[in-house]
């Protein structure tokens, strides 16, 4: 007789009931839509002609790469996701998908996205996509997020890269224009996420994530939001006087910049609980529109130039 009586050990392997919708949720579809849009603009403003099939392939690979980053982020952060009301409904904390399943899913998608972009489009774009995924997962999620209040400032670089990857896919090289686009997203990230963190600071504190409002307090965060918004507005307008983008963009970015600045000043001034919350929510919502409208304007400029070149 063996020491362990195997008949008494009952194995109950976990059989997944996760559906396609659960795996789609792992891809962070809302973040993915912003990535696709900014990448599309990077691709469209790039010089020269890109075959529609190659353009579609590039955007698809960038979208899948962004989804892979989201899945790997949820794999690593499942412990803190379970503690925050905003993220407690994600597939891993809900028990729909296990961590190893999310890891395997994310790694597989990342591999296919990078290899497909490299093989079908060009390896420079493939390498940039691989770097973007690495930066988001390893540098931001694993190294920075739980360690420093500057997590989203540095980590914002990952979210800023999709237009650069798309430009590289279209041209095989880099130029000033995509870097300007990525700088806009880079400086947009802190005011956007700190606004969110201001009205979700209890969540972050409970999860032990050192977001700026948790570590430095709401007043210091409001000042930082205002300072970063000033830089953002200047960076967003700069391509116009520098001659990279046209007047439509210049006027739009100036008007939107003033609105963004007014809302940031409101966030800085309003300290009473109800008023402060409203001002912060307004800034958070407007910041999404702001980025979307800036990039949409560039898209409209390119389309208008193509449709009616004589006007330009």
């Amino acid at each position, binding site marked *: 007789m063996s020491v362990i009586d195997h008949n008494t050990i009952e194995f109950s392997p976990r*059989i997944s009931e996760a559906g396609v919708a659960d795996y789609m949720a792992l891809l962070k579809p809302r973040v993915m839509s912003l990535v696709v849009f900014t990448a599309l603009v990077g691709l469209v403003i790039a010089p020269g002609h890109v075959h529609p099939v*190659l353009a579609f392939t590039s955007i698809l690979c960038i979208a899948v790469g962004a989804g892979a980053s989201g899945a790997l982020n949820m794999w690593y952060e499942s412990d803190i996701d379970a503690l925050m009301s905003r993220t407690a409904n994600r597939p891993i904390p809900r028990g729909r998908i296990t961590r190893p399943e999310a890891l395997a899913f994310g790694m597989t998608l990342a591999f296919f996205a990078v290899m497909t972009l490299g*093989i*079908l489009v060009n*390896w*420079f774009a493939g390498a940039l996509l691989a770097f973007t995924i690495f930066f988001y997962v390893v540098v931001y999620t694993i190294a920075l997020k739980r360690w420093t209040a500057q997590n989203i400032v540095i980590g914002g670089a990952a979210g800023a890269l999709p237009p650069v990857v798309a430009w590289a896919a279209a041209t095989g090289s880099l130029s000033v224009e995509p870097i300007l686009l990525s700088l806009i997203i880079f400086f947009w990230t802190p005011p956007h996420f700190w606004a969110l963190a201001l009205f979700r600071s209890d969540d972050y504190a409970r999860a032990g994530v050192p977001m700026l409002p948790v570590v430095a307090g709401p007043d210091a965060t409001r000042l930082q939001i205002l300072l970063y918004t000033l830089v953002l507005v200047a960076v967003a307008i700069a391509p116009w006087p520098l001659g990279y983008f046209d007047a439509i963009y210049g006027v739009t970015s100036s008007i939107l910049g003033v609105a963004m600045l007014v809302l940031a000043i409101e966030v800085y001034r309003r300290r009473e609980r109800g008023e402060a919350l409203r001002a912060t929510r307004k800034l958070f919502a407007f910041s999404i529109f702001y980025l979307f409208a800036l990039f949409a304007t560039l898209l409209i400029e390119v389309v208008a130039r193509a449709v009616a070149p004589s006007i330009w």
Partner: protein
Amino acid sequence: MADKREPDGIVLTEAQKRSRRQRSIAIALALGVLAVLFFAVTLVKGPAVLVRPM
């Protein structure tokens, strides 16, 4: 005589079978898209498909 033995091992519930089928179809579709994509790019690039710019 009909052999009506109980199946050995793990027996999936209806929900588990349904979700496994969903996942299998999704994987098949993804592989199909990948194959079509490689075929389409091969047609678009022609002989240049072997050129790999860094």
